[in-house]
């Protein structure tokens, strides 16, 4: 006997038996060829010529051996056999699976049911190995030896693939008695191809699934409803080993597998099982003394809407988190620097559109952050400067960094502010960002203008008396040539007065340097204020005459003599009188002194233009000149204050109003407390 197919896989012990029976089958075949005449073969109707009853439309009854039929004719017993056979075959015909009967000795097919005929045609009377396997000789895997000799009477179940139709069958082979008395091979073959393919697909799918899970860098394990780990991938095994978790974790509960986790982890799993929603958590733990940050995602596996498993994916996000934290810290620092900067900072894209501005930029431009962001950077400047700025930015974008020079900012209130711009091009991710720092240079410009003006004024003040002296010299020469003695005398007067101006201005400049330089040591000595006032009046006599202004000296009793540095007190009084004359066109200047206790108040009062209350402190600023055209260096009054301070005194300026004159009062100690040294900001 032979099966319908060639075996491919042995899925059961019977299958292995079947394979082991193959050799026996050959042996059996050999013995048949050796001349032994099988009983079945002798009794098989239509043997060797192809069964006439194997044709389509014939009943199974026609396949009954002739000898049995002949015997039936012989008696009732025969009829009983025929009936029994007919009943048996009708049962087989009612089976949907392939069923056939063959003679074990001759391999002749005795019967095929309808399902078998539908697959193999009407093969009754043909050799089974030829009809089913298209072989010339019996099949090497024939199971006849098993069912007839090894385990007679027992069914032998095995699976194989028929190479003729490529389908898989599960065969149930058994030796059964045929109604004519002989033992025949019964085989029912169930077509299990679809089931095998489904199983194969499932196995393949599982294999791919496993391969996929194992290939993931994330540590993954699957947890069942009882919170036991039922699966883990390679990355998880590696991760667990790094965590110091020994032994297999599969089969253990999450609490026993991860004892370091808080008890809430069980509640988290239960929540995922209950809600069917993914849960993402972040954990920090120490691994080998180093802080490790992990992100855990508990992903529900749903079947028919119910969570059957939870896949837990653990990612080591330490590097990512630390990088994020570093970026946050860096951004915070950058933001802090940016917001704390005294300079206005603008960040623009490569097209010049503003992306970010700092607090100072908002203050400088006088527009809100909202108004500024998205605005083109050239809109910050007046139209006439925009082309120059675009060209400068373009050049800097190529060079990397540079200065766009001094430009003007157009403020929200319509005013303009001079600024200097430094620009850096930052290349990031293929894009170029322009980082512009703008510094308000209004103050610098003001100081520069003041410096230029001061330089011009000082130059003018020094050059004027020199020029006057030169011109007086030329005049004197002309007068001498013309024997004009009056002209010579006038020229001499001009030269003398201008020499005095020059001496005053140079003296003031040097005096301020000394007073501020900290190198001047006070050497007080008794002096007469009246004496000094007389000297100054004499020195200025010519000037007073020309100006038409009188000078009076009124020193009260007891106020004349003080102990002080004479040279300085003379400079102080000279500057006060000189200052009074500059602002007095008519009337007089009065030098006065009075004593109160240990203090003398020296005053210089004029009948000039007066001084506004707002300017009464400013006039003590070195080089301050309310009217730049006014004669002098602007050092007279500041020097007076320094000298008074040096003597422990003060200077106060007052005025009764416009054109009502000015009084400067210097309070000096009759005797200084101690020797003093001049220095920056006064006495020290």
């Amino acid at each position, binding site marked *: 006997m032979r099966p319908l197919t060639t075996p491919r896989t042995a899925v059961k012990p019977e299958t292995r038996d079947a394979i082991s029976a193959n050799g026996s089958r050959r042996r059996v075949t050999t013995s048949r060829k050796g001349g032994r005449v099988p009983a079945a073969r002798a009794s098989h109707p239509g043997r060797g010529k192809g069964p006439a009853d194997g044709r389509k439309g014939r009943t199974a009854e026609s396949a009954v051996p002739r000898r049995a039929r002949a015997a039936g004719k012989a008696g009732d017993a025969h009829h009983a056999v025929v009936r029994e056979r007919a009943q048996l075959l009708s049962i087989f015909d009612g089976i949907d699976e392939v069923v056939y009967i063959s003679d074990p000795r001759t391999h002749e097919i005795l019967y095929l049911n309808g399902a078998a005929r539908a697959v193999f045609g009407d093969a009754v009377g043909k050799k089974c190995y030829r009809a089913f396997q298209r072989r010339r000789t019996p099949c090497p895997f024939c199971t006849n030896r098993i069912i007839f000799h090894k385990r007679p009477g027992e069914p032998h179940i095995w699976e194989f693939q028929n190479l003729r139709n490529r389908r898989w069958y599960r065969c149930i082979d058994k030796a059964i008695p045929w109604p004519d008395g002989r033992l025949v091979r019964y085989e029912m073959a169930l077509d299990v191809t679809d089931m095998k393919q489904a199983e194969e697909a499932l196995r393949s799918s599982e294999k791919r699934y496993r391969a996929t899970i194992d290939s993931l860098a994330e540590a993954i394990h699957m947890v069942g409803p009882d919170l036991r780990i039922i699966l883990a991938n390679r990355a998880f095994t590696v991760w667990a080993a790094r965590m110091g978790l020994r032994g297999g974790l599969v089969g253990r509960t999450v609490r026993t597998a991860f004892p370091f986790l808080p008890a809430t982890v069980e509640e988290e799993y239960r929540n995922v099982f209950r809600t069917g929603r993914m849960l993402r958590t972040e954990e920090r733990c120490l691994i080998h003394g180093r802080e490790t940050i992990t992100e855990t995602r508990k992903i529900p596996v749903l079947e028919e809407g119910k969570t059957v498993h939870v896949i837990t994916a653990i990612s080591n996000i330490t590097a990512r988190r630390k990088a994020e934290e570093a970026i946050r810290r860096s951004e915070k620092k950058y933001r802090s620097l940016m917001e704390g900067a005294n300079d206005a900072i603008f960040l623009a894209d490569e097209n010049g559109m503003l992306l970010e501005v700092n607090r100072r930029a908002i203050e400088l431009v006088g527009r809100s952050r909202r108004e500024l962001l998205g605005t083109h950077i050239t809109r910050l400047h007046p139209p006439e400067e925009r082309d120059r700025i675009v060209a400068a930015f373009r050049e800097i974008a190529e060079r990397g960094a540079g200065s766009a020079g001094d430009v003007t900012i157009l403020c929200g209130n319509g005013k303009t502010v001079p600024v200097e711009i430094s620009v850096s091009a930052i290349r990031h991710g293929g894009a170029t960002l322009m980082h512009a720092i703008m510094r308000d240079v209004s103050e610098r410009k003001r100081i520069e203008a003041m410096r230029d003006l001061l330089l*011009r004024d000082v130059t003018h003040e020094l050059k004027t008396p020199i020029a*006057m002296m030169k011109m*007086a010299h030329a005049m004197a020469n002309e007068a001498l040539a013309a024997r004009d003695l009056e002209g010579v005398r006038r020229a001499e007067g001009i030269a003398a007065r201008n020499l005095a101006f020059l001496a005053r201005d140079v003296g003031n400049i040097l005096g301020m340097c000394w007073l501020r330089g900290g190198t001047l040591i006070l050497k007080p000595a008794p002096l007469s204020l009246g004496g000094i006032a007389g000297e100054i009046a004499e020195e200025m006599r010519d000037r007073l005459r*020309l100006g038409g202004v009188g000078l009076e000296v009124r020193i009260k009793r007891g106020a004349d003599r003080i102990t002080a540095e004479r040279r300085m007190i003379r400079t102080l009084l000279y500057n006060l009188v000189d200052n009074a004359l*500059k602002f007095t066109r008519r009337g007089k200047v009065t030098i006065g002194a009075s004593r109160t206790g240990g203090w003398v108040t020296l005053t210089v009062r004029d009948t000039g233009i007066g001084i506004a209350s707002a300017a009464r402190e400013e006039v003590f600023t070195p080089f301050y000149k309310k009217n730049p055209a006014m004669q002098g260096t602007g050092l007279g009054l500041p020097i007076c204050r320094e000298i008074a301070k040096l003597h422990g005194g003060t200077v106060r300026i007052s005025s009764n109003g416009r054109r009502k004159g000015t009084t400067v009062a210097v309070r000096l100690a009759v005797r200084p407390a101690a020797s003093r040294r001049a220095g920056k900001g006064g006495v020290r």
Partner: protein
Amino acid sequence: MKRVLIIDDDPDMQALYRYWLKGTRYRLDFAGDAARALRMLKGEPADLVITDVVMGGMDGETFVQRLREEGAEVPVLVVSVLPPDALPRACRAKQVHFLQKPVTGETLRATMERTMKKGRER
């Protein structure tokens, strides 16, 4: 006789002008400040104005600007210790000439002639 208005707040400088220009064919008028000079010019025009720059009240550059704004085309000679390039506003005005101190009587007289001649040629 040509009228020359001299603006200078320094009596010594005024004395120098008087000395150098005595005996010339000019009639000299003096103003101690620029505002007064503007008023004087409104009352009687001059053939030449000589002005200092650094003065109390209105300075010489502002004076020149105001003079031109008022439509006066009188030639102006700026006499100062400052060089012309330090006086940009005066440089921009028309019919303004410069003479840097110190000057001599001869230079002054020659420059005044040239300045008035150029004014006439216009």
